[in-house]
Structures are given as C-alpha cells and as structure tokens.
C-alpha cells in the first residue's frame, strides 16, 4: 500500500504539481524567479560549496537523463565492461563531489549569520532533500555497484511506465531500500521545484550563447512604427508560411503514398506463413493438374488412336464431347449411315466451344457469336461470324478382338463396314491426323 503510493501516487502527484505549479509561478510570480545567490553576503565558503555541488550534480544529472532518455543506447553501451567501469567511476566521483559541495553549503548556511538572514524554511527543506538525495545516490553507487547497468532493466522501464501512464511499480519493488528511497527522493525533489529556489534550474540562460551583445527596447512612436512594419512582415510571412505549409503537407502525403506503393512494389507482397501454405497448396494443386494434363497429352502423342466410347453410346442428336489430338474439344455423333461422325467443336470464328445439341436443321450452335454449323458438312450458316467450316476428324471402329472394322481416312473415304456387328461391341476411336493435317 505504502509502496504503491510512493512509487505510483507520489510520482504522478510530483509531476502534476511540478508542471502546473512551475507554470503558475512563471506566469504570476516572475519577480520571485531568481538564483537567490548569497555570494554577495559570503563568498569564500560558497566557492568551495557551490562549484563542486553544481558541477558534480550537473554531471550526475546528465548521466541519469541520458540513461532515462536513451535506454537502449545506454543499455547497449553498458554491456562493455570498460565503459561500465568508467561510467561508474565518473558517476561516483561526481556524486561524491556534489555531496561534499552540499555539505559545505549546508554548513555555510547553518553557521554564517549573514546567510541565515536570507534563509527561508524552504531553503532548509531543499538543502535537506538534496543532501539526502545525494547521500542515497552515493550509497547506491557504493553498496549496489553497477547501477548504470542494472538500472536499465529496472528503474528505466519503471520511469517510462510512469511516463507512458502504465505505471508498473513491480519493476522496482524488489530493489534494495536505499535505491527505493533514492527514487522517492527524486520525486520529492520534483515536488519541491515550484515552491522553492529550485526553479532557477529552469532559468538556465542558454540564449546567452547566441544573443546580440546589446539590447535596445523602444517604447515610443518608433516602436509602434517598427511593430507595424514587423507585423506587416510577420503577417505576410505568416500567410506565406500557411500556404507553404499546406503545400508541403499535401506534397508530403502524396509523395509518402507514392513512395509507399513504390517500396511495396519492389518489396513484393508480404504474406503470412499460413497464407503462404495455402498458396503453396494451391500451386501444388495447379502443378498436379498441369502434370495430369501433360501426361494426357503425352499419352496422346504416343498413341495413334484415342478411345471415345462405344458406338452404342453415340447419338445422332446429342454429341459426345472429347478432346482431340490438338487438345481441342470435339464432338462425336452417330451418323445417318450408322457410322460415327466426328467433328471439331472449336469454333472457327474465335475458338469457342460449340454446343453439342443438334437442332432440327442438323446444325450445332456456337453460343458465343451465334454461328450454326451443319454437322454433316461442317459448313457455317450463311452470314454467320464463322466463315470456314468445322473440320471432320478421322475415326476408326474397332471390335472387341481389336480388329479394325471400319475407318475414315484422311481423304474422307470410309473403308470397311459394320454390317452384322452389334454397336455395343464396337469401340470408336479418334485417329491421329495425318501429317498434312486437315481432312
């Protein structure tokens, strides 16, 4: 309970109070914002207190802040033993320096009458806080060595968990009491910022590095005029900037989109393992089907004849589809003479498969562009999109013993007859077309 207050409640209290309070003080109490230096009253001891304190604590704070801000970089750096030893030594040295400094400052404040004349209660609170905080820091470095390394897995994630509003005190719950006290001390120092002289840290005058040496402020008509000029410049600049910003944003979005597509294109699709197995399975199936087809084709290439079916299965009005030697669809009918009639079903117009039903005029229909073909001649009806006739294919009728009873040769002539043989016993084959091709 107390742990969860000190490690979760206190941090949020401290951060909120620090941010809100400091802003309030900055807005309303600007006059009180000062380093409140007492060097004027006592300089000799201050030198030996203030210099080591400030330099030491700045170095230590820098180390803490880098570790907190760049945990990964810091963590990976701390895996080098030499670097770790150097960091720990420098840190301990700086911490000790700060501790000595704060002791000297505390001694000075408590013994010098002049300094006491400007000492407030808050000064003493801050002094005590900073003394204990430095002491705990130095003790941590001495008793629980290699804090620069172990803190990356405990304190740093804890700090970020606080900052990212997912507080996880369990990360530091098992740390030694000194370290926990040091953590609590840090939050207390933060809590004291807006109510004490600690605000002077935020007044670090960095702009002195680049500002012009002389500052002149006009308050009369010249200022009004200069303001008018500046304002006009600023306003036209503002309008320009607004436009430029719009263009820039749009351009950025556009190019980001394009770039994204480009990159994705060159990267290729990103698919999950599951998806990949599905795709591979599909591909395998395709390959299998292709292999079957290839096998079929190969078989066709090997044989001179391919079986279509029994003669008794053929009908005069309903064609039986088969695949011919060109791997094109074809139809088998029972001709008027009782012999088979084999005709290509690949429309001579654009290659659709022609229908198998024979109509009253003895024609079959290609449904794509309405071409009627006479099955006896293969001729398309006049005016049909197809201009050339469907070719007849060569066939052979074989009996159960394997003897060829009848066949249609390349010339269209029919040899042999089926007289006396029952159609159930006759097998109809399509024959390999002769090298010169068409019938």
């Amino acid at each position, binding site marked *: 309970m107390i742990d969860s207050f000190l490690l979760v409640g206190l941090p949020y209290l401290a951060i909120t109070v620090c941010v809100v309070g400091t802003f309030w003080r900055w807005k309303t109490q600007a006059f009180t914002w000062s380093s409140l230096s007492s060097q004027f009253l006592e300089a000799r001891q201050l030198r030996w207190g203030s*210099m080591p304190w400030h330099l030491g604590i700045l170095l230590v704070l820098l180390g803490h802040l880098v570790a907190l801000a760049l945990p990964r970089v810091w963590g990976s750096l701390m895996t080098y033993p030499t670097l770790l030893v150097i960091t720990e030594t420098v840190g301990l040295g700086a911490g000790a320096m700060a501790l000595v400094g704060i002791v000297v400052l505390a001694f000075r404040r408590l013994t010098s009458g002049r300094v*006491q004349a400007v000492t407030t209660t808050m000064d003493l609170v801050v002094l005590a806080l900073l003394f204990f905080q430095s002491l705990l820091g130095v003790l941590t470095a001495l008793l629980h060595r290699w804090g620069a390394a172990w803190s990356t897995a405990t304190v740093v994630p804890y700090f970020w968990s606080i900052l990212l509003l997912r507080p996880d005190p369990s990360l530091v719950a098992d740390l030694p009491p000194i370290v926990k006290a040091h953590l609590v001390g840090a939050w207390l120092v933060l809590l004291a910022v807006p109510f004490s002289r600690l605000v002077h840290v935020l007044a670090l005058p960095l702009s*002195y590095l680049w500002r012009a040496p002389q500052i*002149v402020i*006009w308050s*009369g008509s*010249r200022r*009004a005029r200069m*303001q008018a000029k500046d304002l006009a410049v600023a306003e036209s600049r503002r309008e320009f900037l607004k436009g430029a910003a719009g263009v820039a944003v749009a351009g950025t979005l556009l190019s980001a989109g394009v770039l994204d597509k480009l990159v994705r294109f060159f990267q290729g699709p990103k698919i999950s393992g599951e998806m990949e197995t599905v795709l591979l399975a599909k591909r395998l199936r395709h390959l299998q089907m292709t292999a079957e087809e290839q096998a079929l084709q190969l078989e066709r290439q090997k044989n001179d004849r391919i079986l279509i079916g029994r003669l008794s299965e053929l009908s005069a009005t309903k064609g039986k589809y088969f695949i011919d030697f060109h791997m094109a669809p074809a139809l088998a009918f029972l001709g008027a003479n009782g012999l088979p009639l084999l005709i290509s079903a690949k429309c001579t117009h654009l290659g659709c498969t022609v229908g198998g039903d024979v109509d009253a005029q003895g024609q079959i229909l290609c449904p794509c562009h309405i071409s009627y073909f006479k099955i006896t001649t293969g001729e398309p009806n006049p005016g049909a999109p197809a201009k050339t006739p469907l070719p007849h294919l060569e066939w052979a009728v074989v009996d159960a013993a394997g003897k060829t009873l009848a066949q249609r040769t390349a010339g269209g002539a029919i040899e042999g007859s089926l007289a006396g043989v029952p159609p159930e016993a006759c097998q109809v084959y399509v024959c390999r077309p002769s090298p010169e091709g068409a019938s």
Partner: protein
Amino acid sequence: MDVRAQISMVFHLDKCIGCHTCSVACKNVWTDRPGAEYMWWNNVETKPGTGYPTHWENQEKFNGGWVRVRDGELKLRCQNRADAFLKLFYNPNQPTLDDYYEPWTYKYEDLFHAPAGDDQPTAIPVSQITGEPMEIKAGPNWDDDLSGSPIYAENDLNLDKLTAEERAQLFEVERLTMFYLPRICNHCANPTCVAACPSGAIYKRGEDGIVLINQDKCRGWRACIAACPYKKIYYNWKTGKSEKCILCYPRLETGQAPSCFHSCVGRIRYLGVLLYDAERLVEAMSVPDAALVESQRSLILDPNDPQVIAGARANGVSEEYLDSARNSPVWKYVMQWKLALPLHIEYRTMPMLFYVPPLLPVIGRKTNQTYRHARGGFFAGLAEARLPIKYLASLFSAGNVEVVEAVLKKMIAVRHYKRAQEVKDLEPAAVERLMREAGTTPAEAEEIYALTSLPTAYERFVIPALHREESVEGVLNPEVCKGCSGFGHAPIPGRGA
C-alpha cells in the same frame, strides 16, 4: 548612420561642494528598502581616495569593462559566452558586501527602555542584515574629506602613475588637496552590463538611452555587477535581483529632473540630449587609449546638421528630442566648448555622463616657512596646479594629458577674461594672448561663464517630452499589445522561496 538620442549628463566638478544632498535625495526616493540599504545609486567620492565600493577602479580585481582585442573588436574583460555559465555558480569578479560596507542602524529603543542605572544608556549599532550588534568598520563615504590620509588617499590607483614629485604636489598646501566626484550610472552607450547579462534582462531604452533592468527577467546571475567597471549595479541581497540607477525615469517622463539633479545644492548638474551614431560604436571604442576621448566625440552628432536631423527623424527620434538636443547644455559642454570629459573612458563603455574637471589653482605656497603668492599671479600656470594633470588625465582622458590640459587652459582663460572684465587688474593684451592660446573667444567665454555661473533650472535641465503615452498607442493589432497596457496586477516585490 544610425542616429540615436541619449539623455546625457554633465557634472561640473569645480562647483561640487561635497554635501551629499544628491546621495540622500536618491536614497530617500529609491534605496530606502530592505536589501538595498547599502546601495548608493548616487554617491559622492573624495578624490584622491579609494571610492565606493573600495577600489572600484581596480579592474585587475573586478574585471569590469571592455578589452580592446584589435581595431574594431572588443571583448568583455570578465567573461566570454562559454565561461559565463561557469560563473553562474560562483563569480570570482563579484564584489562582496565587505567591499561596500555592512549597513547598520542603532538600537534607539534602548535609549528609552534601558533600566535605570549609573551610566547613560547608549544606542549600540546593529547590522541591518543580521540584526546582530556589530562593530562599524566601514560606511558610505568612509573616506570623505580624508584626502590626506595614508589609508585612503594614498591607495588611490590613479596615483600609481605619478612621480614622487607630482605626488608631493598633492600635499603641498596643508596636506589637503581634494575634490569631490559624484557618481551615478553613466547610462553608457556601449554598456558592459547589458552585454554580460546571461538572462538578457538589462536593456537600453531606445528613445532616451536609459539603461534599465527588467526585474521580472533578472535571475540574479550577477554577471552585470562584475561587468560594470563603475560598479554601478548593485545586488539586492534580499530579493536576489540586481538594481541600478534608473535616472529617475518616472520623473523625467513627467518633465522633472532626476532627484539627484533636482536637489543639487551646488547646481553642478546639467542634463540634456545628445545625438550619437550607434553604428560606429564598437569601432570608435576600440581605438588606442590616448585617442578614446576624441573618438567618443567623433560619435556625437551635431543636432544642427540637416543630415543628422534627417537620420534622426528616420530613426524615430521625436521633434521634441531634436529641439532638446539643439538646446542641450551637454552638447555645449562636451562638443561646442569641449570642457566636459568622460570618466575612465579606457573602460570603453562610452559613458554618457561627462565631468568638467576641477581647476584647483595654486594661489600660494610655502617656501622656507614663508607663505607667498605663486608665480604668475592669482591663477597660476597649469604646471603649478595642485592637482597634477596626470592624475586628472588618469581619471578623465585615459591618460592623455593634452586633452585635460586643453580643458584646464580654457577654464583658466575664461577666468582671466572675467577677472579682467570685472576687477580690471589684468593686462588686456595678456588676457587676449591667454585666450588665443586656449582657443577661445570673448563670445564663447561669456557663454561658458553664463552657463557655468548663472544658469536657471531650465537651462541646466533641458528635458524633452518622452511621449510615454505613445507606448500604449501601438494598438495596431490587439495581439501585439495585449497585456502591455491597462489594468494589471502589481504584486509587491518579495523574495522568492
């Protein structure tokens, strides 16, 4: 040409009687507050003497002012941009309370509440800082009128360059040669305090050149105190902010002379506008020491020159300022008559407060226990002046004796001219020769006499209207002026926690 106006001052040291009325007037108006007890925005020093704070002229110790790097380049003696940050923690150049004095009061109530006894009750001194009884070791003007004393006068740094003979000259008559040096902020044209302030809280007002500290922006880094070579910025130990002379700008804005000017018994103080060329500031302040006075004069612009007037108007200098500049007593003393000189111009801040050096003529001297008139009559020659010229040159012309000599010659010539006119005991031909040598004319002598001896308050203080009302007029865009005017809350200044 970047023409700027500056409210400038002349102190006529021949007229100063060392009464400290100016200091008291200032104290009562501005520094009668906790934390400011030790501050004397206006103080009067006895010269030769060590001054306030003690040895303020010792720049080896306090490192104030600018240092010439080469022609056209100056740098702060106290810090550079980087080490200024180290000096935030401890500034080795900052004077401490002991360099000034510990302010005290007396336990007056003891006089009334002491139990009856055999002896008279006394009011013992107590520190105004700690409230504890203290032994008074120093105070404001501790060396007042102690010019002959070996503790104070002998330690004056300006005596260092003098020969033993010249030093002896100082103590010729009854061991008492001294003059008074009233000092306020010089409102420099090239101030080091502004350049040194890490927070950028100190600024020069554009229209009148008054140097002010924004108390809300000041963070108490104390760099200005070290940087000001005149030690005219003070640290308020109670509020933790720096303070300085504000040239009574609230009085100026209502057409009144600053308190110290107004109250001056000897009427030694003159105030008026000077126009100067801000563009060549650094260039003019980075010449060798001996040329500095002339270099500063070259920056001050003639308010009657049409080109200067046009430049001033273009820069937003108001007509009232131009009028004031034309009637400025400061322009007359500094540029027309060349009688007034800056104090320690070798600090290169271009101070805009000028001094007419004192003329201490020897009217007699002791020889063989007999007191006789000096050779050369009532106003003896410069060589026999009781104040060695070298001493004056070290104060007012960065060691250039000729500059001081020219001033003193002219002053002597004017005196001879008036004596010949009024007392009629001098040869007119001799007076004429003297005036020729001094480079003055009867007309000029009359003018000098009139402004030195008989000026009215309106001739001494030519104060232009400052038009502060215009500062709220800039209501071009409410965004710009929001919060600049109207009613706001004014919290009582107090020390932060």
